């Protein structure tokens, strides 16, 4: 270790970062390199090299469908989270102090509670004897229980709840940095509440919106537990696809290729978000 640890806060001394950098090189970058290496084999016993695994995925309508469904579910969850999360953050900042404490606990608790527990709640809610079916039957709306579990709609709702904190927290930060004078000025100059919201609030909080959307999207498309337990066996998404191919079918090269394709797709989405974020930051400061 460096002889003067405090110096690193005042000078440019990167030596203290070396242990973690070395750890990441060996246990993060090297495994990813091996993942690429394994994906370049043509057969499960890994004797010949070639790009056949990638061709197999990219030419197979079923595999492409799985990828497309996964990316699309992420969009649905993100939109739902934004639609409900923005008003939540808005209400949080206008609530009295005691209510703010309660609200932040309500937002944080799901973030820290085990994902299996949160997903389990949705099995109870959406199940054949769950709240929704019990309520609808006792109200006489339906005669027999609806199938809500193992549907895409139910899964999107569950995913939205599971990932909601990731959307609300950056939005609270973005909205709290908004200068209230700007809103007052807009209202005083005759723009209505809706117009002020569209023309002032939304553009100025766009960086926070982009940050929230990025976190929610990345978490939703990789949410293995919620996807398998609420989505069920009928709906197949990329994480389960990778798990099936590697653990059940033991086809490592194909599982590796699917992982790489998934990684690249996620990175592409992340960079699109980052570009939008950068543009919106310039817009917000202009």
């Amino acid at each position: 270790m460096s002889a003067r640890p405090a110096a690193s806060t005042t000078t440019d001394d990167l030596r203290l970062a070396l242990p973690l950098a070395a750890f990441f090189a060996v246990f993060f970058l090297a495994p990813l390199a091996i993942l690429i290496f394994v994906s370049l084999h043509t057969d499960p016993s890994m004797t010949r090299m070639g790009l056949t695994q990638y061709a197999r995925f990219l030419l197979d309508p079923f595999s492409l469908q799985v990828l497309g469904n996964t990316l699309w579910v992420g969009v649905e969850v993100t939109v739902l989270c934004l639609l409900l999360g923005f008003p939540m953050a808005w209400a949080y900042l206008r609530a009295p102090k005691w209510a703010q404490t309660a609200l932040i606990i309500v937002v944080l608790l799901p973030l820290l509670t085990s994902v299996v527990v949160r997903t389990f709640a949705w099995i109870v809610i959406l199940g054949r004897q769950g709240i929704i079916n019990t309520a609808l039957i006792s109200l006489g709306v339906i005669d027999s229980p609806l199938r809500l579990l193992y549907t895409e709609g139910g899964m999107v709702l569950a995913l939205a709840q599971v990932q909601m904190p990731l959307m609300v927290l950056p939005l609270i930060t973005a909205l709290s940095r908004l200068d209230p004078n700007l809103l007052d000025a807009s209202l005083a100059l005759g723009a209505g509440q809706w117009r002020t919201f569209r023309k002032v609030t939304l553009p100025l909080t766009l960086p926070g919106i982009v940050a929230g959307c990025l976190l929610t999207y990345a978490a939703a498309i990789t949410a293995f537990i919620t996807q398998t337990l609420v989505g069920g066996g009928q709906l197949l998404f990329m994480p389960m696809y990778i798990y099936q191919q590697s653990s059940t079918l033991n086809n490592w090269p194909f599982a590796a290729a699917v992982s790489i394709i998934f990684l690249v797709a996620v990175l592409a989405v992340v960079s699109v978000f980052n570009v939008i974020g950068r543009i919106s930051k310039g817009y917000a400061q202009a």
Partner: protein
Amino acid sequence: MRRAEWEGISFTAVMLALAALCFLLLVLPTIVVIVVSFTSGFSLKFPPPGYSFRWYAALLDAWQLQFAASNSLQVAAGTTVLAVVLGVSAALAIARSERWTARLLDSLFMSPLVLPALAFGLASLMFFTLIGLPVSPLTLIIGHMVVCVPYVVRTTVAALAQLNPALLESSTSLGASGIYTFRRVTLPLIRPGILAGGFIAFMSSFDNVPVSLFLRDARTDMLPIRMWQDLEGKLDVTIAAVSGVLIVVTLALMLLMERVAGLSRRLR
């Protein structure tokens, strides 16, 4: 009514209605789990036919769940210690540096947060198989460390960014050594940030599925995976009692961390 007034009312009404919906969506599932965990019946029927402590009592005999919980706790503890030691020292180095290498390291340390952890889990399994290291608590800790250390780095870097450099300079100019300044000035001021990061790292290791899925075996069964497998097989009511325990413990720890480390401010 004037148009502006009507607009103001409709805007507030829509926002509050959506916020209320969001509130319900966030709170309801937790309440449902707590209520159903006290059921006296054998199914997840809601509302339950009657109330009892039977499923909590059943936990005392559920040795598989107990075994998995103890494994998860040990791995989470090991992961947290390693993540705090390496993460805090890395944060000290990169927090104030303007060098491009520091920015690059920052992006590298944060990247596990956005990359699909399941792909990393598979990559780790391939890596450990290749170097001939069998899966064990050690490989689990190594894998968890990669996906949990970003939280420690992030909260510590944020705490260091708020640190007033004048404090460090006056300590040094008054003759304190670097180590003394670190121990008596820097560390006390960034301690809440480290605590919050360590806490989140602990919780996310305890809850980790995508990495554990590949790096555990029967001897190193992990709680979230055990629960997932129990739920996939049949809808087991014992899981409701486990969930009840986890919710209460999480809430208690969260309130404690809010008090000692200002958790909510550090997560934003």
